[in-house]
């Protein structure tokens, strides 16, 4: 039976790309558990919610890269920042720590450097802006983008699946949606 070597972060990242749940178990043991320990006392359901949000946002972004030496460290630091933001929203807890404060945390994996964290935070900010713009679209528009760009379905298939009159309408709507996304991102200060 295949088992991911949790100490090899390259292997973990590769297995995550391949959708192997063993890699997720590594993340649970190596990152989630220290995260819960760091955030204690915290309700397990809240910790799980925060961490799954981080996984959803951060891990695919990290998997885009080609260096995984600090994979655990980046997930861990992002999770702690997410926890601090969560506390802040509830009117509790201090401000988000600047990156250098992470140097005080003791875990059994290497923590990222300040430059790496800053770079990661910039990527996260862009992703958050993109997500905000995406969320402004209707459900049908969101599905349209995902079907066409991610799943690479043909316009005819999409017209049938989403109830558009024909393939041309799909093309026109998609153009409009992409333009709207771009305008939204420009408004948020990102000129792609």
């Amino acid at each position, binding site marked *: 039976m295949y088992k991911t070597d949790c100490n090899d972060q390259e292997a973990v990242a590769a297995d995550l790309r391949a*959708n192997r749940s063993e890699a*997720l178990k590594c993340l649970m043991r190596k990152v989630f558990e220290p995260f819960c320990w760091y955030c204690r006392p915290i309700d397990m359901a809240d910790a799980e919610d925060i961490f799954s*949000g981080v*996984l959803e946002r951060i891990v*695919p972004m990290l998997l885009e890269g080609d260096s995984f030496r600090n994979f655990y460290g980046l997930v861990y630091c992002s999770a702690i920042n997410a926890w601090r933001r969560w506390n802040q929203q509830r009117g509790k807890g201090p401000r988000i720590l600047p990156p250098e404060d992470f140097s005080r945390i003791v875990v059994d994996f290497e923590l990222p450097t300040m430059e790496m964290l800053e770079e990661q935070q910039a990527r996260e900010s862009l992703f958050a802006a993109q997500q905000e713009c995406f969320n402004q679209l209707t459900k049908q528009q969101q599905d349209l983008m995902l079907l066409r*760009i991610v799943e690479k379905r043909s316009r005819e298939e999409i017209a049938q699946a989403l109830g558009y009159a024909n393939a041309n309408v799909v093309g026109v709507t*998609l153009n409009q949606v*992409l333009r709207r996304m*771009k305008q939204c991102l420009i408004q948020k200060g990102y000129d*792609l």
Partner: protein
Amino acid sequence: MNNTENTDQIMRYDTGEMDEAERLAFEARLAKDAELQADYAAYQALAGFLHQLSEGRALRAQWEEMRAQVHEEASAEKAKSTQPQPLSPPKPSQVRLVPVNFRWIMAVAASLALLLYALWWWQGPYFSRQLDELAAANLPGTTALIRRQLPAGYGADAESKAYRTVLERIEQGHAAAALPVLDQVAPGPFADFLRGICLSVSETPAQAIPILEPFTDDPEPFYRQAAAWHLALVYARAGDKSKAEKMIRILLEDPTSPYLDGAKKLQTRINSPFAL
């Protein structure tokens, strides 16, 4: 992505819908056309975001499924550890010689015994105090009766003076100090009787018994009743319930006895379960 035609071409190129010639033409244009390059970069950024979004959702679903499984396993483990074991005949070593409830019964019994002992221990001095009170309450009566029984000629002579001293010392609670005074008077039943009374209220009441016992059969009610009363107190203090009761019966026989009330109280006290 302001140019609709560019966007259409980029998407067709990205989704692999172009044929070979079209693809080559597009790539050639992409290498030269700055606007197309900008649109293509913007498209790639958005496509990257959408891919991340899609992968993230899948990853989250996978993670939540795994966590649910972890919780399920933990609950199953917990349920297994708290599940009652199936009933089976107990091993010989597990058979109890006495039922569990017996322990409770024993504990209650021990507590009760302890409580009774504490009550008895507390009642001891209390009973003794009650006897002292009874004795003190009746002593003036005894001395008054003795005064009335003094021999004729009780006056200013040495013997009369000695008797007065004896009575005063008894009344003052110094009965032992009265004994040497009694040595100065002529021996006789009255002197013996007084000696017995003195001893019964002294530190050594047992010495009064042989002296006062003969007086309990005396035909004279005063001697009989006073002797019986003082002996009843002596026996009660010594814990001899039967002899004390015998003396009380003597006192109760005569309804005119000055010791009647005291005798009844003494009887109640000595019949108390904690008294003797």
